């Protein structure tokens, strides 16, 4: 191998990890790509606030990024200070889903934005963190209000501060 070829190979070898590091935020929620994570709660920490009104736990959590979220992102400018903004639909199913005619699913607002940097996306009151095993943690850092059912029914619940949910990347079908 010539000295020039060796230097090129060395430069490529040095650039590859840097390129991968830069791509990290896109691994969690790749731009312009629909995605779905599905999971459930892991054992709440000792200090986690309980579910209240009613005291019913979550049985499934979905993080959906479909056309509505990607279309919204399409209109958002990339933050000048780095990172990027993404939109996410957090869909919660509680243990009493559909009981007594109640909502089967609850979700956050349509235009919740998260700032992503590295392996973490932060909404301020909750975070999504990519783990080394490729799962993600949805961590409540203040709590998230979720609503359900028809307008006017005023059905809302809360994913309380301190609760953590572990999710795995799934096919889009799993978020439907």
């Amino acid at each position, binding site marked *: 191998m010539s000295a020039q070829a060796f230097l090129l190979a060395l430069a490529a070898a040095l650039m590859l990890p840097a390129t991968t590091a830069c791509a990290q935020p896109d691994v969690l929620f790749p731009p312009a790509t*629909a995605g779905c994570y599905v999971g459930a709660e892991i054992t709440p920490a000792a200090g986690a606030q309980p579910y209240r009104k009613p005291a019913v736990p979550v049985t499934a959590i*979905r993080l959906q990024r*479909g056309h509505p979220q990607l*279309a919204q992102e399409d209109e958002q400018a990339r933050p000048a200070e780095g990172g990027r903004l993404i939109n996410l639909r957090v*869909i919660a199913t509680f243990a009493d889903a*559909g009981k007594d005619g109640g909502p*089967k699913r609850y979700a956050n*607002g349509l235009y919740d934005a998260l700032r992503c940097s590295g392996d973490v996306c932060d909404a301020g009151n909750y975070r999504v963190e990519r783990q080394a095993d490729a799962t993600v943690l949805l961590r409540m850092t203040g709590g998230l209000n979720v609503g359900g059912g028809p307008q*006017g029914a005023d059905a809302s619940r809360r994913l309380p501060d301190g609760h953590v949910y572990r999710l795995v990347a799934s096919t889009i079908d799993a978020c*439907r």
Partner: protein
Amino acid sequence: MPGFVTKRVRPIPATSILAALVAMAAAPPTFAAPRPLADALSPGQPSCHARVFGAAELAAHPGRRVTGIAIERAARDVAAERKWSRLEEFDGTAIVSATLRVRLRGDPVTHSARLQCFRGDGDALVCESPACVGGELRISGEGRGAIQVSIGGTLKSGRFIGHYIHLDESCEGRVGGPLVLESGDDDRSFSLAAAPKQACQ
């Protein structure tokens, strides 16, 4: 203060202030944006928009699952809209209520889903199923009272992103998976003309 000229301010009669306040309270809120698609989906009036694909159209689009699709606003929808119109409107506040009805190829059942629609971009509506949140469709105007129903859409890059809407209220509780209308190659958008009420049944 020497040389400082003061001028007596003309008193404003209390009756003038009261009259102005009454006029402000009685005037309609001019800041409210007009409701999208007010011509096709007129507030206070039921509506029906429908499309049935004939054998020739289905043969030309073998990938199309939908053989018939309708959007109906019945009396109960109009009543719901009237109630909602009294609420303050935020992002995501429903302003139009409707029922989606779909017939699928090789399926004798007419599937239906309740829709709640809120203001989208421009003169468009974004509709969700309140029972199974997550899916959505968009309704825009096509002129002369016709509407376009689309599922999924194209980003600025030109890339099409598919989506879906639930066709019943079972959500993930249905054996075999949720029943959805998804944006396949030939099921992305549908042009629906205004039609008599019977066409939406």
